[in-house]
């Protein structure tokens, strides 16, 4: 353990190394580290922001979807209602039309029957007159017996 000039030289060397480190090494590397830390922090913040945006967008999309669904079911319900109403209306119309046709047919049939009956009545009257003429072997004056013939017609 002999202390000598080596001590001084080592101290000088140590001081020189400290100066070198403090001057050339430390500040540059710390700056690089700080900058990278900032970049990473920014990136993380951006990521967080993006995640938040995504959550907001998802929420909004969900809301829109629910709204659209509600609207769609509303429309569907409206359609259903319209459909049943239309069907009911159609049914009612058809029934009325059918009733009308049936009534018209019935009226026509009645008319036809009346006409046929009238024709038949005329023919029977003619036949009766003709029969009577044959029986009487002479011409019956239609005009003279018009009242009688009408009466017969009425009774048929």
């Amino acid at each position, binding site marked *: *353990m*002999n*202390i*000598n*000039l*080596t*001590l*001084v*030289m*080592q*101290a000088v*060397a*140590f*001081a020189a*190394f*400290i100066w*070198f*480190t*403090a001057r*050339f*090494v*430390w500040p*540059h*590397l*710390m*700056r*690089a*580290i*700080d*900058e*990278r830390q900032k*970049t990473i922090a920014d990136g993380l913040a951006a990521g967080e922001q993006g995640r938040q945006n995504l959550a907001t967008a998802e929420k909004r999309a969900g809301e829109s979807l629910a709204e659209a669904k509600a609207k769609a079911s509303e429309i569907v319900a409206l359609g259903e209602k319209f459909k049943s109403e239309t069907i009911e209306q159609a049914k009612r119309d058809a029934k009325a039309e059918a009733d009308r046709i049936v009534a018209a047919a019935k009226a026509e049939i009645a008319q036809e029957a009346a006409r046929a009956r009238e024709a038949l009545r005329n023919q029977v009257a003619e036949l009766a007159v003709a029969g009577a003429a044959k029986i009487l072997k002479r011409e019956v004056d239609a005009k003279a017996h018009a009242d009688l013939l009408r009466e017969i017609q009425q009774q048929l």
Partner: protein
Amino acid sequence: MAAGTELTPTSYIQHHLTFLAKPWGQGDFWTVHVDTVVTTLIVGVLCFGFLWLVTRKASSGVPSKTQAFVELAIEFVDSQVKGIYHGPSLLVAPIALTTFVLVLMLNAMDFLPIDVMAWVYEHVFRLHNWRSVPTADVNTTFALALAVFGMMIFYSIKVTGLGGWVHELFCAPFGGNPLLWPFNLLFNLVEYLSKPLSHSLRLYGNMYAGEIIFMLLGLWAATGVVGALFGGVLHLGWAIFHILIVALQAYIFMMLTIVYIAMAHEHH
């Protein structure tokens, strides 16, 4: 080994413990341990040159593996400094980094096998006496500790002013009563002196003892086959354990440096 001298255990150990001393003037003090100084300079220039090269190529983007390694060391030191020192000086962290790297690498010279290196120094560089480990030279550890001591005094005076510092020498920790001045001064002197002493001798003692144990195991290995076997195994074990000591002592030296400078910023 020196040609022509008989190899005895004493001469073996003495050979390994002799510095390459060159006189620089008259008297015992004016001597320089060339091995210590040159090894320190080579190791320091290599280390700090390496750091500087990494710094020059440093990017704030994705770092290379080398840069990441250096940044790891820097952040390690920086976090230690931030945990202990809360003052305004930006110089403390670089001081701590320099101390850590320098002491670690000078300690790591102990990993070089002493007898192989002795042969290399003898036959390649024609140097008979050359000690590889600068931190096993008390001059180195005292130089580092005294430099730290100087910074401690500097920061003490800077923070409290010269008057305040002198005031604290006499009036702390027991009180400002003039009767207590001698005791305060004595207490402070002991405190001040113990710091560089323990700081330097702890490192010196650990590294010196490490070297001595390597030498003793080397001596045992020279006694025969059994000795070579056990000496070799123990040598390996000690070398592995020494990795811990080398890193631990560098860490302790750095931590004490930070603590002493941080303490200088606290005043009573």
